[in-house]
């Protein structure tokens, strides 16, 4: 893989999507679904009476859910502009880096979304690794992008960075050592 190819990948760093609005407003059903899975005991998400008297003034959604409101619909496909991640994914896919696993994420929570809020987001390419890395799963590039979530009043709800690796699956009989400074690989 030549450096020219890698330079081209890194050209996309800093590219940003237009602002995209979530399909649904923040609703109590999705919040409770989340709480049931996580066994989250915070009354701010569930107990309307408690929440009304709290610093929030109303039921709020867990900050860890910030990305959930923006996830793509299962059907029908939503007509949104190509996200800035796409040219990187396409280029890596064409060069054999066909598989994806998430390796980490970071959230900075500024304000909890209230029931009824409409969440919008902008997503930006934050980083692409300079070269490929050897991992347990195969040669991989690490891509990081960053979301910025706002409400209908353009108040910042939070930011979330997300890193995944795109890898060329290693043959099953090859035991490739993982980079000591990189995650062994995990999940999407």
């Amino acid at each position, binding site marked *: 893989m030549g450096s020219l190819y890698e330079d081209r990948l890194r050209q996309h760093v800093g590219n940003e999507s237009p602002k995209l609005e979530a399909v649904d407003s923040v609703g109590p059903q*999705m919040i*409770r*679904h*989340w709480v*049931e*899975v*996580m*066994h*989250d*005991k*915070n*009354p*701010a998400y*569930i*107990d*309307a*009476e*408690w929440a009304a*008297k*709290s*610093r929030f003034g109303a039921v709020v959604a*867990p*900050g*860890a*859910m910030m*990305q*959930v409101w923006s*996830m*793509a619909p*299962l059907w029908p496909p939503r007509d949104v502009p190509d996200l800035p991640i796409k040219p990187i994914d396409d280029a890596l896919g064409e060069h054999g880096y066909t*598989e994806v696993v*998430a*390796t*980490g*994420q*970071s*959230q*900075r*929570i*500024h304000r*909890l979304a209230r029931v009824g809020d409409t969440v919008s987001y902008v997503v930006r390419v934050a980083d692409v690794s300079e070269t490929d890395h050897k991992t347990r799963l195969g040669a991989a590039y690490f891509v990081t992008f960053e979301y910025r979530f706002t409400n209908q009043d353009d108040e910042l709800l939070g930011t979330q960075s*997300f890193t995944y690796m795109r890898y060329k*699956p290693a043959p*099953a009989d090859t035991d490739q050592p993982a980079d000591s400074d990189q*995650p*062994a*690989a*995990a*999940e*999407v």
Partner: protein
Amino acid sequence: MPNDWMRPHLNYKSRPWTEIEVGEELPAQVREVDATLVVAGALASRDFYPVHHDKAFAEQAGSPDIFLNILTSNGLMAAYVTNWCGPDWNLVAIDLRLKIPVFPGQALIRSGTVTGKSDDDGGQTVTVDFEANTEFGPHCTGTATISYAGAA
């Protein structure tokens, strides 16, 4: 109100900032991972990638079974920390690094240690380093920062 039945299961009490010491260990908590948790977590986070609900697809992708998605792992660790400190705290930051995937049939053992405490212009905050382990090794490690907001 319709959620009355949940009240006995919610946590209305909070740890006071003054009582928390650097070095304090959070009580470990085990969460049994089954296919229901993997699938319910994927749906709660609207992540329809088949490796989180379709075993045949996961096997074709080289995985022994369906596995937890990152948003569920993050949500489980966030709830672990905030269930410990209580509702008078705000979770302001959480960083998660994934290690090995976790599959149905495995237990996720969550633990954490208070690694920082400060009281300044940024308010009263506490930092917790956490991890979740399986019998096969670490699933994830990370850091959460919580900020004391005062009694509700």
